[in-house]
């Protein structure tokens, strides 16, 4: 079954790339946009650190590692599922979901990966290099195990981010028009754009154990910098699989409430 879905994913990647090449200026601008987003995030911390040298023991070097983890997780989101989940509400409202449900593959898989954006692979390479460079600057050396941890965290953070976002987006099935639920997701996602030490303890624990947005970048940065133990990696792996399973169960539950609008 895994091989079957892998083949579908590769085919979707090829067709998406051909479709992307149709509007080449748009590709360039999309990549450029992501760099602006990176610039904005860096600028926020540069401005704050221009008024102080340390915040809770974190200097600008450690913040760059945190941002590297955040950008890396975001590039995977952009390549695979960002646009698909953003359009989920529209697919439900216009009845396009019927077509997905009729296909002989998992509807959750098709909805999540229908349109991919391979052009963001360039961003992934640049962000990965930037993260490794920041880590080298901060730690003084770079071990192979650290790179392995980074890659494993990229998988875990994306599994958690994808599951949460998918569940928020799929509520469009019962809500009808739910464009603003995407905004709700961004409000929640905003919490992961800052390292968890900037939040008071109650919010920090919420971000770790209730709504684990802290696992998108904050926990990975703490672990690869050696601030927290490697056991957090096992926790992240566990959470990733739990959330993936939960998103699948949630989808099966909510799709039963779908009433087709196109027929």
């Amino acid at each position, binding site marked *: 079954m895994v091989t079957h879905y892998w083949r579908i994913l590769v085919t979707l990647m090829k067709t998406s790339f051909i479709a992307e090449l149709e509007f080449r200026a748009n590709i360039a601008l999309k990549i450029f946009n992501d760099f*602006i987003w990176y610039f904005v995030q860096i600028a*926020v911390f540069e401005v*704050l650190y221009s008024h102080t040298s340390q*915040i809770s023991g974190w200097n600008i070097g450690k913040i760059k590692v945190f941002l590297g983890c955040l950008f890396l997780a975001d590039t995977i989101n952009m390549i695979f599922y960002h646009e698909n989940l953003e359009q989920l509400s529209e697919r439900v409202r216009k009845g396009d979901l019927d077509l997905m449900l009729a296909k002989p593959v998992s509807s959750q898989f098709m909805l999540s990966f229908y349109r991919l954006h391979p052009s963001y692979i360039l961003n992934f390479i640049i962000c990965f290099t930037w993260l490794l460079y920041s880590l080298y600057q901060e730690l003084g050396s770079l071990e192979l195990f650290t790179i392995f941890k980074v890659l494993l965290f990229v998988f875990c953070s994306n599994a958690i981010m994808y599951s949460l976002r998918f569940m928020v987006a799929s509520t469009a099935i019962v809500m009808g*028009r739910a464009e*603003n639920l995407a*905004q709700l997701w961004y409000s929640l996602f905003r919490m992961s754009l800052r390292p968890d030490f900037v939040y*008071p303890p109650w919010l920090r624990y919420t971000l770790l154990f209730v709504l684990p947005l802290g696992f998108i970048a904050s926990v990975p940065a703490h672990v690869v910098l050696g601030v927290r133990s490697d056991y957090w990696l096992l926790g992240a792996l566990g959470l990733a699989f739990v959330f993936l399973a939960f998103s699948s169960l949630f989808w099966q539950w909510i799709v039963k409430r779908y009433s087709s609008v196109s027929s």
Partner: protein
Amino acid sequence: MWVYAKLAAETHLEYRFNSFVDWCLSPLISTAVEMAMWWTMFQAMGVSTLGGFSRESYLSYVTWAVFFARISANWMYEFRMLQEVESGSINSILVRPLRFYEYYLGQFLGYKLMTMVFSLLLPAGLALLMGGTTDFWRLPGAIFLLMIYLVFTYTLTFCIVTLAFRLTKVGSFTVTKNFFVWLASGELFPLDLLSPSMKMLSSYLPFASACYIPVGYLTHRLEFADLLKACWVTVAWTGVLGLFGLFFWRRGLRIYSGTGA
């Protein structure tokens, strides 16, 4: 235009939960997060002032900033207008005895007025509860500037939409613009924290009128002269963009081939 505004208001009331998320839930979460963040940041930095302002001043600022930024944002109508050109459904507007600019401006302002009425009750309540540096007598001035900014941001949207006649897919311009506005409006942090040269530059751009100037005026960071200057700057930029928009609209219509018609 009043009819279009009513149309937008009624359409948005049709999906009440969707509107509730936009007007209340989403900005409330962002505000709570920002307030918690600034509270802890002051403790972690061990300072009593930052950029010349106290913690109370920052908390008052973030109470209002997210709501002002949310009201001034225009992503939903921009995507809808771009879709009209991309898909060719703009044809149905072009053949009617109405203007595209007015048609969407009416809807946009109608929607934003409703958002303003419902959204601003929340920070007003929070400011009353928490005290801080909010001066409610300054609220009309802040709202007046926000209204001018709404016309500006809509005109900017119109200019981007006219590019779609030539380039078809220009959704990425919207994202670029929104990132820039995010940074330059003062939503992420008050612009006092910028270097003097950057702050000077931002005072000649209209984006600070979305959040920093009205919220700064409301929370005693800025004075009436700053508000007045921002009004003039925003009006001037609106005029310039309006001329650009008109020029590109005419040129765009000449080359438009009615895709999907």
